[in-house]
């Protein structure tokens, strides 16, 4: 088959410069004029910028002899992890240790988180606190930390115990709240709101991720004693705000009578809230989120959001660093360190 329909002026095309044989040898002179040197200059410039930022931001030199504790989170685009980082920074300041806090750009980027951990192992941090973005996927890299003799504390999201066993990997402690219990609190709250039959929708997080899955499981179990409440839809919105908006819009089209929505994080809940407002139905649908971020708390105080499960990420970050230092000083830690969990509601609204 002939892919060319209209014959263009071939003669002109043949004489295009890039097909002219290049006689120039890669001598020093030609190199000096060459783009590669631009790259070189740029690399230098960026290096300097980098150092500038680094040194200005952290007065303590990265190479000081102080204890260095790393905190690797899922992302920093979310208030939850910013709060965790803040808590860790406070604890690090009080304890006089250096904190290295890093995260991939996207919460879904398991491989990038693995790379960050590998790189931190290379800098020989003294302890590693990790919020794994994949319960099974990060197990191999925890093994690498084990082999480098770096103690690992798991924060917020559990590692898959079966994989941990199978790989013979060790971690000191799990620090976090029980996502399942949090989901259950939300479910029980919805059950108490609706003594009459009602339709419920769920916005799921990232499918297959332990944190979101246990929240949803908890929520469903919280509703279990109320057979008159029917879950009409449960759709993934990838833990993102814009997805929460879009999926909620679609759900509103499909199910006009939804009375309550549970989103497994606040970003999706706030997205859903906007979608409900945009549909002109603000206030008619009870929306519950998870994480109790500042913005969600404001929305709850304003009576727009029904409730959110508070996990206290600041306490998690603080505990992570404190316990890591404790472990380094030879203390023995329990296998699981619970962080309190509660449902934030608007008392006036009740």
């Amino acid at each position, binding site marked *: 088959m002939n892919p060319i329909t209209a014959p263009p002026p071939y003669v002109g095309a043949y004489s295009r*410069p890039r097909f002219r044989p290049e006689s120039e040898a890669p001598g020093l002179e030609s190199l000096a004029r*060459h783009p*590669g040197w631009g790259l070189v200059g740029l690399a*230098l410039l960026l290096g300097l910028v980098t150092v500038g930022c680094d040194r200005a931001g952290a007065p303590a030199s990265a190479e000081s002899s102080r204890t260095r504790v790393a905190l690797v989170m899922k992302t920093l685009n979310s208030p939850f992890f910013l709060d965790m980082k803040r808590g860790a920074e406070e604890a690090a300041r009080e304890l006089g240790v250096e904190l290295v806090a890093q995260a991939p750009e996207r919460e879904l980027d398991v491989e990038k988180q693995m790379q960050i951990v590998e790189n931190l192992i290379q*800098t020989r941090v003294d302890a590693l606190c990790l919020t794994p973005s*994949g319960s099974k996927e990060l197990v191999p890299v925890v093994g690498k930390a084990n082999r480098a003799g770096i103690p690992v504390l798991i924060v917020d999201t559990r590692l898959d115990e079966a994989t941990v066993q199978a790989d013979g990997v060790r971690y000191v402690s799990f620090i976090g709240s029980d996502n399942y219990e949090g989901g259950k609190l939300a479910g029980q709250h919805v059950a108490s709101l609706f003594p009459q039959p009602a339709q419920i929708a769920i916005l799921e997080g990232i499918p297959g991720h332990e944190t979101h899955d246990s929240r949803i499981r908890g929520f469903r179990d919280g509703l279990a004693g109320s057979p008159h409440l029917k879950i009409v839809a449960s759709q993934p919105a990838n833990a993102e705000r814009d997805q929460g908006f879009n999926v909620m819009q679609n759900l509103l089209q499909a199910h006009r009578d939804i009375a309550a929505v549970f989103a497994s994080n606040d970003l999706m809940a706030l997205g859903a809230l906007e979608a409900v407002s945009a549909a002109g139905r603000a206030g008619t649908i009870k929306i519950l989120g998870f994480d109790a971020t500042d913005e969600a708390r404001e929305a709850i105080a304003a009576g727009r959001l029904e409730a959110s499960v508070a996990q206290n990420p600041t306490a998690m970050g603080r505990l992570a660093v404190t316990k890591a230092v404790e472990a380094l000083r030879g203390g023995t830690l329990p296998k699981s360190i619970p962080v309190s969990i509660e449902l934030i509601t608007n008392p006036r609204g009740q």
Partner: protein
Amino acid sequence: MTPPKLALHHARQLGTLAGLLLLVTVLAILSPHFLTPGNLLTVLEQTAINAIIAVGMTFVIISAGIDLAVGSVLALAGIVLGLLLQAGVPVPVALLLTVGAGGLCGSVNGLLVTLGRLPPFIATLGMMSMARGAALLLTQGRPISGFDSGFRTLATGQWLHLPAPTLIMLGVYAAAHFLLTRTRFGLYTYAMGGNEQATHLAGINVPFHKTAIYMLSGCTSAVAAIVLTARLNSAQPIAGIAYELDAIAATVIGGTSLMGGQGTLVGTLIGALIMGVLKNGLNLLGVSSFLQQIIIGGVIIAAVLFDTLVKQRRS
């Protein structure tokens, strides 16, 4: 059968290499942890996946096309691999079928571009969405995890201290470099990118070779999927999001022209190493992930900008 502008290729490669060496020097000065054997091996291991995807991307871009589907094809191929291994298919057979699945996706791209006469941007954009959807559909969104240790040696194994992903990367580059510089297929790849009409008039079967190029890109994405799946011990339907951008970046930093007709795999490999070294170094220095994105974007733009400026000055 030498590719056009051989001398320029060398000059460009030396320039890119100088850029890489300087980056390495700067990072070695800034961080005492950078220039250690352990860290350099880590960089080589981390670069493997992007570098392997960039092989197919280089062929496609030299032929004046683009392949936006590589990340999604990687995810789909990984899922195919995961399902096969879970079903107990012997590892070598599973690997072959995985590469075949990637090649199949690539062939569809190629046929859409040649027989369907779709712009490559559109054809591969469609495939990007379809392959992702298929990966999610096959797994209901859940990762497939837990493979036997034999398969995982593809990520954990070592030979002469080199990690297995690096060895696979080097193998792929050696084979692809031979294909691009020593075979008719390679010559036609340059020819189609330089002037498709002239190539056609010279009696070369353009649709066939172009389809083969997109198929090759699908295959290299699948090889990257094998490495990634072994590395994470898990096949993820959401793997590889935005990997096409990293692969395009490595290719253009390595001197391949988006206009087609020019480029080398050695350049692409150095480009991928620049990306890998930069990301590793910024991590070691503790630069925030937000600033990292700005710096990486700056490097990509600068590399292409200088190419453009030099070309303008020459003509």
